[in-house]
């Protein structure tokens, strides 16, 4: 398969495996390993799997097929960006503005995600040099000494040390702390990681993203398997605490508490997790699939990317994170931890575990390096929709579009980095720029697919070159059940969570500023979309959007 279609000036993935790895790379992220297990424990352990799999079947898999179908359809008509693809499917001048949302979501998430990615790499480096292991004379020892001075002893002192270290590391105590002296390593790593992302994106789809994911995803799985085997071989590491063993750790994670299912938040969080983990309604899949050719399979490729993501989440994370934490910390300590907090589980609980584990230095490095790989494969994918749009919408060359996007992303990243107190800017970007917008975009895309594009046409397009037959009831589900389910979730989100979020927003200046920043980015993207629409109209691309002969 050609890497670049010179006659069209369009990029393509070099191999079919490449596209699957790229989509899996965009889906497998930090949330797979840290957010999913914490949510499961909080919402009834094994019982959480019921709403989780229901959401996967009703929202995740069907919506992924719909996005791949619409993406390839738009790509065959010469568009790679969501504003263009939506305009081809729905010839209405409003359609392209919904596409701005598909550009905003990955960009807004990138602004904080790259920061978390740099934390993972920094922690991996600090495991190598011994800074994060107690008793090695590293930085964590200073924090343990401070905790002991504060009256804590033993495991409590270590736990408090990891917590205060992390808060100091991310600058959670006051705004601007992350830019102060003593934060040289995280800042250098952030610049390095940011540059690495843009170097990848600058090299293009096939030579950049595809190569990164072709190496990164297998490496991620190898590291994940290594950590999994280590956890499964832990047995009962402390003979004085026979209850803290692997089997009981599995019980802590998987024993169902059916009563938790009566709480609507369990169903909301399950649906939210499916959104985040698969990246549906994120604007990335529709962009990636637009680079496919007319007869490339999408039905099996989409399902495979979903399966790889679920494999890392359910089969690996479900067996690693919580059981390991249980074995070393015990049920009492875990019950007092905020397990639904992704960062707390990842950067406070697990370092505590590695500190107690034989070979913790190696496995701590492997774990955080694995998270870094998962994060970079995802973060690079967040840049591609905007790059594609700036190139085809504004006619910019790769260098100019990368520079413009780099400026926007760096400004947002600095904003999140500066307003670091209690991670308020990060949390606001995440909730308003991602969670709310993803739900809205997913709802729009479902309606676009089921009611505008049409399930008959969708079925034909999905099966063009398909390696599997998708049962027809999935199409009916996309038309009726998925939008209804999404509307229900949106309504429940509004009822249960929006009030608190709005109240928090109103009394927090940083949160208001963050909303203003996200709104400004959206306004700029909508202006660009408007200019792009006029350009496409002038060139007659929207009127004559017939399939390109060699697409």
């Amino acid at each position, binding site marked *: 398969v050609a890497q670049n279609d010179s006659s069209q000036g369009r990029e393509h993935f070099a191999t079919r495996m490449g596209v699957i790895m790229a989509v899996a790379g965009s889906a497998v992220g930090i949330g797979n390993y840290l957010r999913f297990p914490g949510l499961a424990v909080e919402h009834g352990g094994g019982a959480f799997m019921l709403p989780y799999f229901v959401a996967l079947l009703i929202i995740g898999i069907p919506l992924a097929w719909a996005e791949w179908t619409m993406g390839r359809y738009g790509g065959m008509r010469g568009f790679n960006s969501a504003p263009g693809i939506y305009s081809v499917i729905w010839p209405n001048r409003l359609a392209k503005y919904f596409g701005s949302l598909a550009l905003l979501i990955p960009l807004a998430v990138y602004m904080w995600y790259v920061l978390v990615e740099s934390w993972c790499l920094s922690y991996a480096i600090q495991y190598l040099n011994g800074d994060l292991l107690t008793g090695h004379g590293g930085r964590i020892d200073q924090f343990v000494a401070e905790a002991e001075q504060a009256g804590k002893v033993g495991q409590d002192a270590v736990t408090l040390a990891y917590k205060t270290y992390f808060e100091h590391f991310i600058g959670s105590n006051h705004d601007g702390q992350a830019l102060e002296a003593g934060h040289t390593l995280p800042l250098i790593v952030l610049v390095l990681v940011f540059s690495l992302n843009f170097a990848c994106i600058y090299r293009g789809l096939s030579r950049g993203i595809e190569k990164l994911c072709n190496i990164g995803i297998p490496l991620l799985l190898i590291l994940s398997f290594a950590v999994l085997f280590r956890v499964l071989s832990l047995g009962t590491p402390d003979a004085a605490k026979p209850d803290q063993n692997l089997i009981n750790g599995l019980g802590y994670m998987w024993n169902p508490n059916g009563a938790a299912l009566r709480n609507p938040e369990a169903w909301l969080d399950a649906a939210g997790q499916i959104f985040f983990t698969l990246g549906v309604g994120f604007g990335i899949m529709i962009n990636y699939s637009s680079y496919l050719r007319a007869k490339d399979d999408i039905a099996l490729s989409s*399902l495979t990317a979903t399966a790889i993501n679920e494999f890392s989440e359910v089969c690996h994370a*479900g067996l690693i994170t919580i059981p390991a934490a249980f074995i070393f910390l015990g049920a009492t300590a875990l019950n007092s931890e905020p397990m639904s907090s992704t960062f707390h589980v990842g950067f406070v609980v697990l370092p505590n575990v590695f500190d107690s584990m034989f070979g913790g230095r190696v496995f701590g490095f492997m774990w955080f390096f694995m998270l870094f790989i998962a994060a970079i494969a995802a973060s690079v994918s967040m840049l591609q929709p905007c790059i594609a749009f700036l190139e085809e919408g504004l006619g910019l060359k790769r260098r100019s579009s990368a520079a413009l996007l780099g400026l926007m992303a760096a400004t947002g990243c600095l904003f999140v980095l500066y307003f670091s107190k209690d991670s308020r800017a990060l949390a606001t970007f995440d909730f308003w720029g991602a969670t709310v917008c993803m739900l809205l975009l997913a709802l729009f895309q479902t309606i676009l697919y089921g009611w505008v594009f049409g399930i008959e046409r969708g079925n034909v397009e999905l099966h063009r070159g398909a390696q599997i037959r998708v049962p027809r009831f999935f199409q009916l589900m996309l038309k009726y059940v998925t939008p209804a389910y999404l509307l229900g979730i949106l309504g429940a989100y509004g009822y249960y969570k929006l009030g608190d979020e709005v109240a928090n927003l109103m009394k927090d200046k940083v949160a208001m500023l963050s909303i203003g920043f996200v709104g400004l980015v959206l306004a700029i993207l909508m202006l660009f979309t408007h200019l792009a629409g006029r350009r496409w109209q002038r060139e007659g691309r929207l009127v004559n959007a017939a399939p390109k002969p060699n697409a």
Partner: protein
Amino acid sequence: MAPTAAGWTIMIVSIGSVCALTAFCCYRLIFPLPAPPEEIRGEVHVPFDP
């Protein structure tokens, strides 16, 4: 805190079903379905040179 029967069942069914889905996808990727034979339209002209 040992896994109950329901805990074991949910764990095995969840992990088993995800593994089965992944295995099926990998199998289909490695052994793709044969392409359907192309439909021949119109007359077939076989060059004949006695």
